[in-house]
């Protein structure tokens, strides 16, 4: 029986490697759900450089934490580009990414964005601020914070905006509770949430600015509004231990911060981290804060992840339970 099993597997491995052998190195990119078009352009540009010629890529785009779990479960990855630091730190804990992954010029952050409100064409319900989201008839779409990175950015944007508006921590948490009672469904990823919203469900979608721009590009009939107070989304990328062994992967990783790549990000609606490319292209909301804005109760992802998103004791876990999930 075992012989047959090994025979079967061998035949297919041979066939598969014959198929793959003709391609040279392959770099495995595992990313969160939205940047497919952006990385597609960056990869094409990279393949035109001398370091990238002849390099094949396999790409996977899915909810950020689901991707982290998949890599931990054995999915091969050389470069992981996830939605927020904690998902990469998860892989550090699992021994798949080196501890010093973020020790480079941009702390490993590939691009920025902000949390925005995506609304129907013409904003018929006049949704402008965070208090509009909890008005009686309004339905809000956001992904599930326990699978999606974008969802966690949404939650912290909502919390931070309340704190910036003068609310206490307790009041801000209460707002979160109220907000999620306006959420009829929580799809598992940011892109899936956009799908749901595009299909007609909900009045407003909380998501990355770049996905709102993507929606417009693809002809979805939506507008988006940047609230006055919102969070700066910083999305990181890291080389895994297997990626460190591949020169092509290391070159690609460095390439992400080249001017060409950063311009590609900008063209797709992402806010580049390279100052020279970012100049004046994007609107800066007056109340922009980050995950490290202590005065608004945001003291870094490690502490925030533990307090808000611990699956058993976190604030969001309690809120989900109160919703019956």
């Amino acid at each position: 029986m075992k012989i047959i099993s090994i025979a079967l597997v061998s035949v297919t491995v041979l066939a598969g490697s014959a198929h793959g052998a003709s391609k040279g190195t392959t770099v495995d990119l595992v990313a969160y759900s939205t940047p497919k078009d952006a990385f597609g352009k960056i990869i094409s540009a990279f393949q035109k450089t001398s370091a990238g010629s002849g390099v094949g890529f396999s790409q996977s785009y899915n909810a950020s934490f689901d991707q982290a779990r998949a890599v931990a479960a054995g999915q091969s990855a050389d470069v992981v580009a996830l939605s927020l630091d904690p998902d990469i730190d998860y892989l550090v804990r699992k021994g798949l990414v080196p501890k010093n992954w973020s020790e480079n010029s941009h702390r490993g952050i590939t691009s920025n964005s902000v949390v925005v409100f995506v609304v129907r064409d013409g904003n018929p319900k006049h949704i402008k601020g965070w208090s509009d989201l909890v008005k009686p008839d309004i339905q809000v779409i956001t992904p599930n914070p326990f699978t999606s990175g974008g969802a966690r950015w949404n939650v912290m944007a909502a919390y931070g905006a309340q704190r910036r508006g003068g609310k206490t921590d307790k009041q801000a948490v209460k707002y979160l509770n109220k907000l999620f009672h306006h959420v009829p469904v929580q799809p598992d990823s940011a892109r899936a949430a956009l799908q749901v919203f595009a299909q007609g469900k909900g009045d407003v979608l909380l998501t990355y600015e770049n996905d709102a721009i993507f929606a417009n590009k693809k002809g979805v009939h939506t507008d988006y509004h940047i609230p006055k107070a919102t969070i700066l989304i910083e999305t990181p990328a890291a080389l895994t231990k297997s990626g460190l062994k591949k020169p092509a992967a290391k070159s690609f990783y460095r390439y992400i911060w080249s001017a060409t790549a950063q311009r590609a990000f900008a063209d797709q609606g992402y806010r580049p981290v390279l100052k020279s490319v970012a100049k004046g292209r994007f609107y800066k909301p007056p109340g922009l804060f980050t995950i490290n804005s202590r005065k608004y109760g945001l003291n870094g992802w490690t502490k925030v992840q533990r307090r808000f998103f611990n699956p058993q004791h976190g604030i969001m876990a309690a809120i989900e339970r109160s919703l019956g999930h």
Partner: protein
Amino acid sequence: MGSWPRSRGRLATESITAAPPLAGLSGGALARGVAMGYLSVVVLLPLAALIWASRAGGLGSIWDAATQPEAAAALRLTLGLAAICALVNAVAGTAIAWTLVRDRFPGKGAVDAVIDLPFALPTIVAGLTLLALYGPGGPFGIDVAFTRTGLMFALLFVTLPFVVRAVQPVLLELDTEMEEAAASLGAGSFAIFRRIVFPNLLPAILSGVALAFARAVGEFGAVVLISGNLPFKTEAASVYIFGQLQSDNQSSAAAVSVVLLFISLGVLLAIGGIRRRRTRHDRV
């Protein structure tokens, strides 16, 4: 060399009865060994791993995982819609089989061929076609995406051939003498159908319905696009399992899968039972 029975509506269980073994065939033992080895590696070993993984947290954990609110909702929705789908197929499938066997019209051969399309078409393509037509932006102005109705359409699409192909051969073999006799005695066509034709068709309808039910319970590709997969509302059991797998909740996925596995086995047993009753009935 003659033809062979069209078996897409039927199963291997129907045809395996006492056949004389090839005398002195030492190759027989080899064939058996190889066949069993193949079956084990490809089917049995993975299923054993599934059952093992589901009981990882103790037998009680299977029940716990399957009765989680979201899992239970998905199971209820799936079983309920599959049952309705099976019933619709019982009626529509029989009607279609009747039209194909008893009626004559130009292009009937083409229509008969088309019935096989859901067997041959990849389920994701079926789902996309339904989404394109009956979802947002569809030409008829109907939008059932993200609704249970949309889910239902998908299930009806993929289960279409089962009852039709089960009933067709039986209808073909049916002798029309009794019906003609009854008609000449003044019986109305519905009474003829109810009393003479239907009892002969019933076992075939039932096995077609059982297969359609099993297929609908397990369907994934066709439902995943049009239903929207909204938890507690339009999330099918197969989609729930897939989501649990993506979130690395392996034992939870395994537990709900074991429930589906037992439903599939139950359906096969039921079909086997229908077979046995029919052959017993025929022998009388």
